[in-house]
Every structure is written in structure tokens, then in C-alpha cells.
């Protein structure tokens, strides 16, 4: 873990239960701002960092939460479409959902789902080094993000519909379709400027083995 003062939210593993970022003096961004590794920056600067990390790190993955997955109210379908549009721009990206917050015991299938009670299992299994949480209710996102920082080396990005997340490495608050599209645009721009994506050879969204099996109508047994 990088050392830096004042307190920085960098990739882990930070050890069992690192302190909550809020306890270390990190404050949430205002509308129009973003948070990068604990520092307040402009929205544009945050988007730039997010795009850079998504294209450069291994096994980028989007974790859509209930607020994106379930079209239970007006506006969700549009936001969901913008998330898919973002995914299309990140070579090799996978989409692993967090459909709700029920605990899953005795055994989780880490290729099919990410669960807030043990998010590290999905990240370890799939060797995910950068991820985006979008549409996850704040109280579940916060604990999940700390667990990820505690036990994995994954760079966490949060596109939060509410006030943002100080426990993620890069966060954008009040995030709606417009902000998701702005991130997609930032990704496109970096590629145009010559940034070669880490998984440049992979085209489009990659289905996990579990998703491929379900799509093919096969019975999938997790390892």
C-alpha cells in the first residue's frame, strides 16, 4: 500500500478492517466535484482518473447494484442503458451483478454474483484489479468497499446516485445518466489519444463462464 499524508485511499490489501475513511478526515465531494484517493478534485479530473484506471488495470469489471438492475421506477432503464454503453467501451470488461443484499451461504458462485457480505471472494476469484460500483445503496456500498480495500488489490470506482463514497479510490456523487455518459466519453477520448487498453485485444463485454453456461441453457456448477 502506498504511504501518503494526509490519509489516502489507495489500493489494498490494507489488512483486516482498515479504518473508515471518514474517520481519517476524508470528506465527501459536493455536486460538480469528485473524490480521488481521498482528495477532492473537479468532476472532470475524477472522470479522467476513472477512465485511465479502467483501461489500464487487469480484468475491469462493472458491479451493477439493484438501483440499476431492477427497472422499478422511471429513469432506471435509461441509466442501465448508459452503463451498458460504458461497458462496451472498455475492452475485456465483465459485468457481475449485485442484484440484492441477501447473504449467500454456504457457498457463493463468484462468477455469477458479487455479495456485499463477502465481496472479496468475487474479486479474488476473478482476479479483478479495477471495478465500478453503480446503483448500490450507500450503506451497503460503504462496508463492501472497506472489505475490498482490506483484502484485495482492486481499484474501486463508485458512481454514486447519492453523496459519493469516501472509501472508494475514485468516486463521483449525484451520478446520473449524464455523468455515466461523461465517463464513457472520457474513456473514448483516452483511447483516441493513444492509450492502449490493457485488454486491447478483447472485444466488447466478456461473459463469465457462469453467464455463458446460463445463456447456452447448460447447468452450471461453480468450481
Amino acid at each position, binding site marked *: 500500500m502506498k504511504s501518503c499524508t494526509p490519509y489516502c485511499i489507495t489500493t489494498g490489501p490494507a489488512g483486516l478492517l482498515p479504518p473508515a475513511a471518514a474517520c481519517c478526515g476524508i470528506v465527501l465531494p459536493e455536486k460538480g466535484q469528485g473524490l480521488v484517493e481521498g482528495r477532492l478534485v473537479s468532476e472532470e479530473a475524477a472522470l479522467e482518473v476513472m477512465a485511465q484506471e479502467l483501461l489500464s488495470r487487469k480484468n475491469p469489471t462493472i458491479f451493477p447494484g439493484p438501483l440499476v438492475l*431492477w427497472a422499478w421506477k422511471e429513469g432506471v432503464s435509461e441509466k442501465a*442503458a448508459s452503463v451498458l454503453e460504458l461497458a462496451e467501451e472498455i475492452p475485456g470488461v465483465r459485468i457481475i451483478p449485485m442484484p440484492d443484499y*441477501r447473504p*449467500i451461504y*454456504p*457457498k457463493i458462485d463468484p462468477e*455469477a454474483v458479487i455479495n456485499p457480505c463477502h465481496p472479496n471472494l468475487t474479486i479474488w476469484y476473478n482476479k479483478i484489479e479495477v471495478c465500478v460500483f453503480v446503483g448500490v445503496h450507500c450503506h451497503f456500498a460503504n462496508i463492501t468497499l472497506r472489505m475490498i480495500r482490506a483484502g484485495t488489490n482492486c481499484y474501486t470506482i463508485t458512481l454514486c446516485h447519492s453523496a459519493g463514497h469516501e472509501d472508494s479510490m475514485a468516486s463521483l456523487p449525484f451520478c446520473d445518466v449524464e455523468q455515466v455518459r461523461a465517463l464513457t466519453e472520457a474513456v473514448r477520448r483516452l483511447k483516441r489519444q493513444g492509450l492502449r487498453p490493457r485488454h486491447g485485444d478483447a472485444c466488447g463485454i466478456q461473459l463469465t463462464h*457462469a453467464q455463458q453456461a446460463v445463456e447456452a441453457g447448460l447447468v452450471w456448477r461453480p468450481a
Partner: protein
Amino acid sequence: MALKTLKVAPGFMRFMPKEYQDLVEKGPFGRQIKLSELGTFKEVLEEHPMCEGCAMALFIRLSLIGLPNPEHTIIVGTAGCGRLALAQAAIPFVYGNYCDTNGVASGIKRGLAIRFPEQDKDVVVMAGDGGIADIGFSQVMHAWFRKEKFTTVMLDNEVYGNTGGQESGMTCRGTVVKMAPTGKQFEKIDMIGLAQNAGVSYIARLTPTNPGRVVSTIRKAVLVARKIGPAYVQAYTSCNIEYSIPPDRVLDDARQVEKERYGYLEIMTDEAKSYLAQVEAETRTPEAVATV
């Protein structure tokens, strides 16, 4: 939860785990499920971490099938074995503290009635005998005195199963359990009698020997609690670990206990009876039958 929450956003179905695809396509939501349909629909509870052969797990599974409107139900539970399975079911679950389930349920039920005046929302407390008759006792009684309209289901395994076998108020006199080595000194609490005294509208006592009866009892209890007044279901759900019952003998034990002392008991007020008769008549109309 409402039916709209079960619509997957366009383009995301292919990323959803199979379990959720099945829940959306073949779940028990928006229609009355019959026990005979078991195996043809996706149950709200499948995997759970309770012990092999646990009668409580069987009872919970059947109870969830009995819920008349799972998409409009909230379950309140607490510490104890039952919540291990209940928290994993595809029904909103609220974890009350070990003592305040019935206070929490009262608040939820009243809040839902204000928030959704056009839509009946069912609240069901499901907790162990320790949670209901010992530490939660006063809140259970007061919710009944206040005639709160929700269902209380006691998962009566006659012991504190989750914490390794202490006696509870519902343990029978003389019983020796692991952490009550001298045997219980007092009688099993008469919760049925207390419920009657408190004016509970629908009361039932049963074992899981007859799956159809479990399903219909829960359904009746929830329907009465929805419109008439409090409902109480007390179910013998043996703990095979603490009572050393081999998993394949759990139902034999339930049959024996039913025969010797637990029986099947159903008590309801006249108002509850006529309401259930009315619901029954309505579901038998040609239009209703055609839509089931």
C-alpha cells in the same frame, strides 16, 4: 417489494445469475401458489446454511410457500437459527434485535399502511421460542394487547438451538439439554392460552408433519392479520442437534410429538372465521378460478 421491482432493466437479463432469472420468470409472485405446484416454480428459498435435516428449515420452506402475497410481505426475524434461512429468502427481511421483533414489526406495519394506503402489505415475525416467549415476551404480549395487525410465528424447537442448547420457557418440564444438565424445573409456557387471553384473532399450533396444513395455516394467519387482527402460529420445529434426533428420523419425531402432546389446534374469532369464509368464497368465483 412490489411486482415492478422484479423487472430486470433492459439488456441486463443475460448478466443475471440463473437464480434471479428463474425468480423473475418462474417465481411465486403475483399469484396464489399451491403446494401441489412444488417443483414447477422457483421457490423464494432454496440454499440455506441450517443443519442437515432441520425441521425448522422444512417448516420455513413450507411457510414461505403459504404466504398469500410474497411480493408484498416483509419478514422480521432475530438472532436464532431461523434467520439463517429467512435472511436468504427472496423476501425483504428485517433483523430485529433479540427481544424487539414485535415492536419493530408494529412500526413497519403501521408505516407501510401510511406509505401504501392502496396496497395491503403483510408483516410476519418468525423467530425462535427464545426470541418470542423469553426475551421478546413483553413486546409480543404488548403487540397483541394493541391488536397490531401482523402475524407472529414461533419456531418452537423447545431449546436455544443457535447458542448450543440452553433451556427456554418453551422447553418441557424435566427435559435435560446440553446446557441445562439438571433438567428444566418449570412447565412449558402456555403461549396459546396467553394469546387467547390477549384477544389474538387467529391462533394455531401445529407440527410440520402435514405440509399442506402448514401452507394453509400460514395463509390463513397472514390473511387474518392483514384485515382483522393479530395472528399467532406456534410450530413444533425440533432441533435435531440439541435433541440428538438423527436427520432421517426428524419427521418420525414430529409425528410422535404431535400425537402425544402437540396436536393440531386452530382457534379463531368469529370475525376472523367469517372473513376467511368470504376470502374462500371469492377465490372460488369462476373469474378467480380462471385467473389462478
